């Protein structure tokens, strides 16, 4: 078991493993998304309160969940990199940031579009989840800005890891403080997205979408980590050997 982790952390091994892994994540993920979308859009019955507008949750909820998960990858990767000086963990953290920012943006956009027919406005400050998600997007921007403004990769890794870890504490505080704040100012009743008890015909597509998005996230992450590993290892012997090999690498 230990040997497996040790090999996984070795850059050339990871580089090859990730290449074979990507299609195995990508295609089941796409299949699940297709199945989930079809059932979510056409098969699941309309919600008795929100009508057909609730179908937006089939993309909104997975996006919001991935925006959090990508941040966790960033922070945990940074933490492992800081404590055990594992370079691969830093590469994972660096790769997770732009994907997380993209999904955070998607969660914000779909949440806002959902709000238009439901609240009658594109943006509702009173909704704690939208506000928290916006602050999360700013955290991603700060993280990426810090990373891109430090030229030395090793230094950028460590500095951004500290920021990501501080940010995790912040995400929790933001969650609770925004909840408190919106409870003070709640003028209109805000509908809950999805009730507590969902019809299985509604729930199954949602679970499929969440799983599908997670697999797609894995594929995107693997692809980006490969690039990071390749760039960081550009002066090593294995990269040289791979590039000069007659069949060529990828």
């Amino acid at each position, binding site marked *: 078991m230990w040997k497996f982790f040790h090999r996984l952390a070795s850059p050339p091994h990871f580089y090859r493993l990730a290449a074979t892994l990507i299609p195995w994540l990508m295609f089941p993920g796409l299949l699940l998304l297709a199945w989930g979308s079809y059932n979510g859009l056409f098969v699941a019955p309309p919600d008795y309160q929100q009508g057909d507008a609730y*179908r937006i949750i089939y993309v909104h909820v997975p996006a919001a969940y991935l925006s959090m998960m990508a941040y966790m990858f960033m922070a945990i990767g940074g933490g492992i990199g800081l404590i055990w000086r594992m370079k691969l963990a830093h590469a994972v953290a660096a790769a997770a940031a732009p*994907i997380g920012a993209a999904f955070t943006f998607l969660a914000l*956009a779909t949440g806002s579009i959902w709000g238009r027919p439901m609240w009658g406005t594109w943006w509702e400050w009173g909704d704690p989840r939208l506000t928290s998600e916006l602050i999360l997007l700013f955290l991603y921007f700060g993280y990426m800005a810090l990373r891109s403004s430090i030229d030395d990769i090793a230094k950028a890794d460590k500095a951004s890891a500290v920021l990501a870890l501080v940010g995790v504490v912040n995400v929790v505080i933001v969650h609770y403080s925004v909840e408190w704040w919106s409870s003070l100012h709640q003028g209109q009743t805000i509908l809950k997205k999805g009730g507590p008890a969902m019809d299985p015909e509604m729930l199954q597509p949602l679970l499929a979408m969440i799983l599908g998005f997670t697999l797609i996230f894995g594929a995107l992450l693997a692809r*980006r980590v490969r*690039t990071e590993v*390749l760039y960081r290892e*550009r002066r090593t012997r294995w990269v040289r050997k791979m590039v000069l090999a007659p069949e060529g690498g*990828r």
Partner: protein
Amino acid sequence: MVDIGMGNYGIYVWVCFGLTLIIVVLSDWRARVRHKRVYRDIEVRIKALEERE
């Protein structure tokens, strides 16, 4: 037959799904392009070094 218009909500739902598709495709495409660029830069540098020797 299914109702594509979904009452008055169709436009919102379809825009959300379309946006999702665009973002997923764009993320994957950008990752691919970046990988190719990094690979090509490294290839050019290593081959140039090789020829000099």
